[in-house]
């Protein structure tokens, strides 16, 4: 615990003392410590934050100083603890220990409203905009300019609102048609509106959680221009990204978080992309990174995509003319930065998304128009990237989850009757085969730990001797032991002659598992690496830039 005088002050306390770090933040993994510059003030910071969710230690000692008027990037693997940190900075979560610093003062935040009152605003990945209202209505919602104060009945001064909106948009160099209905407006504009809304509410520190994940490249450019303009106006920006290229292009400072700790901090000028990348994945879990040294796969092609295209719907990436082959006994990795279309590709193959052109051929049969059920009957297995909503029904029992999909097949259903006994036996068999740890088979799937949930998914998907497994982000949010187990499963499946299409945002994983890696960028395949083992840099380059230059 901190000495009494350093106890974070509550918001009501008008304590003016500057924060003094009680001791040097613990950067045992970092090469450089964060140096508190004395001539500039900290707009937003953290001191030794800890936060656990049950057994998961999401943050275990994060310190951070975002200087006023700078763009500060936070990078790190999936599950490194970035979003958790943001939630604490924004007051959505309270740290277990450590504290948040706002405008040089340690504070205790009881909710996002208090952060907002202190000029800290956050743009979530899920935009907080009502789709049926106009942009202008969304802009003012909750803090409407009025002509005369009549409580809730006050007339909204739309002219003033529009002036404010236009003024703010202009100040950051954005062009916005405020009268458009929100649902008819492209995502990046929505993002601008979110940002402008925060500015209007007086925020001078903006937190953006993976703001580019949903954007197309030209839109990313627009966003960056806007963020630079903001910086020029004195706004401080903290943004999270997985894309090192973006960080290099935009940020002034970068902090790397790994396994819940700050491990690296530098100004952009003093570092390089590869250096950042090395910090993101350094000390990676001892993955079995021994892909059979450039095995030559000779199996029959199991999956062939021929010029597959798909239109974008809602916020999804479109796919453009994708052709590839996956052979029996091969793991084909799909590398790509989140949002470039690997999820969409997996969904197209699984039959969950309409294609607009091209063919999907499974074991020689064209399945392009077939239902998901028909594809599954032909030997397709699908491990969804969205485990909690598509991979599982968390409210249903474990046995239901592990059987669903096979429930019409013998021995579970015979003569139209579903045998609970056989169902339970089969379920237990499947669960045992993958060593899923659970209480009772009738417990809800929610009761399982993340890794075991994913093992359950594999238990279901691998049970009917599939020929092709589509595994989308199979280890997202899974702990180290779980990861090792899932990797083992995928290898075993491959070794027994199965074909695997593995989509993962984690390069380490792809390299550890894949026989070949193709890179997807903006919905197109931009390159292929046949011996991935040493090609991390090359793949990373293609992921970020779309070519191997």
């Amino acid at each position: 615990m901190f000495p009494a005088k350093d106890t974070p002050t509550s918001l009501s306390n008008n304590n003016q003392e500057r924060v003094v770090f009680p001791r040097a933040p613990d950067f045992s993994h970092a090469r450089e410590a964060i140096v508190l510059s004395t001539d500039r003030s900290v707009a937003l910071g953290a001191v030794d934050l800890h936060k656990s969710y049950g057994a998961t230690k999401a943050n275990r000692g994060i310190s951070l100083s975002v200087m006023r008027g700078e763009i500060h990037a936070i990078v790190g693997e999936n599950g490194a603890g970035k979003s958790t940190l943001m939630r604490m900075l924004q007051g959505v979560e309270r740290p277990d220990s450590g504290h948040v610093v706002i405008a040089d003062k340690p504070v205790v935040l009881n909710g996002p409203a208090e952060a907002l009152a202190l000029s800290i605003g956050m743009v979530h990945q899920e935009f907080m905009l009502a789709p049926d209202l106009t942009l202008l209505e969304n802009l003012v919602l909750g803090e409407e300019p009025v002509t005369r104060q009549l409580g809730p009945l006050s007339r909204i001064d739309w002219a003033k609102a529009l002036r404010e909106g236009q003024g703010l948009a202009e100040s950051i160099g954005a062009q916005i048609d405020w009268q458009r209905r929100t649902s008819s407006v492209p995502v990046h504009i929505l993002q601008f509106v979110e940002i402008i809304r925060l500015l209007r509410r007086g925020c001078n520190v903006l937190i953006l959680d993976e703001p580019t994940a949903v954007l197309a490249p030209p839109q990313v450019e627009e966003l960056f221009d806007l963020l630079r303009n903001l910086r020029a106006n004195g706004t401080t920006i903290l943004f999270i990204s997985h894309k090192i290229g973006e960080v290099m292009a935009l940020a002034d400072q970068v902090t790397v978080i790994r396994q819940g700790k700050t491990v690296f901090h530098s100004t952009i000028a003093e570092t390089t992309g590869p250096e950042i990348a090395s910090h993101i994945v350094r000390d990676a879990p001892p993955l079995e990174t021994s892909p059979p040294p450039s095995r030559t796969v000779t199996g029959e092609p199991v999956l062939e995509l021929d010029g597959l295209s798909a239109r974008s719907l809602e916020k999804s990436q479109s796919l453009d003319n994708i052709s590839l082959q996956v052979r029996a006994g091969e793991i084909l990795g799909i590398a790509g930065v989140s949002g470039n279309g690997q999820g969409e590709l997996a969904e197209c193959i699984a039959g969950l998304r309409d294609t607009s052109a091209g063919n999907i051929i499974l074991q020689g049969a064209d399945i392009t128009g077939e239902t998901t059920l028909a594809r599954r009957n032909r030997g397709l297995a699908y491990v969804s990237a969205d485990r909690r909503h598509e991979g599982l029904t968390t409210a249903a029992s474990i046995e239901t989850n592990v059987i669903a999909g096979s429930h019409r097949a013998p021995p579970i259903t015979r003569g139209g009757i579903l045998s609970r006994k056989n169902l339970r036996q089969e379920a237990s068999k499947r669960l045992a085969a993958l060593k899923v740890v659970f209480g009772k088979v009738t417990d809800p799937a929610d009761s399982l730990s993340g890794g075991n949930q994913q093992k359950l998914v594999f238990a279901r998907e691998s049970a009917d001797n599939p020929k092709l497994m589509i595994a989308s982000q199979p280890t997202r949010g899974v702990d180290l032991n779980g990861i090792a187990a899932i990797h083992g499963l995928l290898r075993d499946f491959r070794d027994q002659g199965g074909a695997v299409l593995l989509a993962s945002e984690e390069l380490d994983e792809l390299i550890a598992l894949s026989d070949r890696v193709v890179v997807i960028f903006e919905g197109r395949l931009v390159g292929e690496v046949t011996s991935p083992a040493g090609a991390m840099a090359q793949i990373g380059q293609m992921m970020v830039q779309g070519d191997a230059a």
Partner: protein
Amino acid sequence: MQVEQILVSTLILTTPILLAAIGGLVNRQAGIVNIGLEAKMLSGAFVAVIVSSATQSWFIACLAAALSSAVIGWMFSLTITRAHANMIVAGLGLNILVAGVLGFILSWVYKTSGTLRQPDVVLLPDVLPEFFEKIPVIGPALSSLDPLTIFAWITVFCLPFVLTNTRIGLWIRATGNAPHVTRAVGLRSLAIQDASTAFAGFFAGLAGAHLALASLGLFNEGLTAGRGFIALAAFYFGRDRPIQTAMACLLFGFLDNTQIRLQTAGFPPKLIGMTPYLMVLLALIFTSVRAQRKARL
């Protein structure tokens, strides 16, 4: 001469539906489908008769009817917003409950059943002076205008403004559209929904008051005769927009009014009564199919 009379009675038959529909549409804009309008109309009619007789004032009677129904609406809303009751079933339950309570009061307090006649019930006055009657065609309609009818139509034409241009209007629309957004910007979305249901109750109460006090001056347990559901049909048909909903109400009022003529023309009365519901069904199909076509493009 006939046209004039059709105008008059269409207008009068429309008013209670319209008042209820106004409340219902605001309620639905805030995200709550109010199946309990019928109950609140009935209680409004009841209160209106009693208060009108007791105070000799149609105005106090209407106000009391509206407020009492607003309170019922508000409590009803609490079961939905706070206790997560299913709004459809709770609404049906409310209709039964209120009918039961009123029946009980009738038999135990007033020792009667079905109909309550009170002495000296003051009816809604005609607002405009008599000479308006001389105006051709619309004269009789104008001269028979009662305060609630005028109020209903004023509300209809004010409502688009209120919904688009006042803070509460914006809050209501935002809450119905995306309650999590309303909550995220710091508004109390549940309280907004409760307020909208109370508002619906207020107007349903006025609708009941109109049924009781427009010309009858008595309460009858069948007085609402399913008008709460017709109102529901109207705002579904009008897609929650005030003017369109009002037009639907006028249409339904007109249908109700021309029943006689349609009956003479050989249409069975039962089937005529079914038209509003059929129209809503068809409109619903039409819009959904069209929306899907659009989405497919």
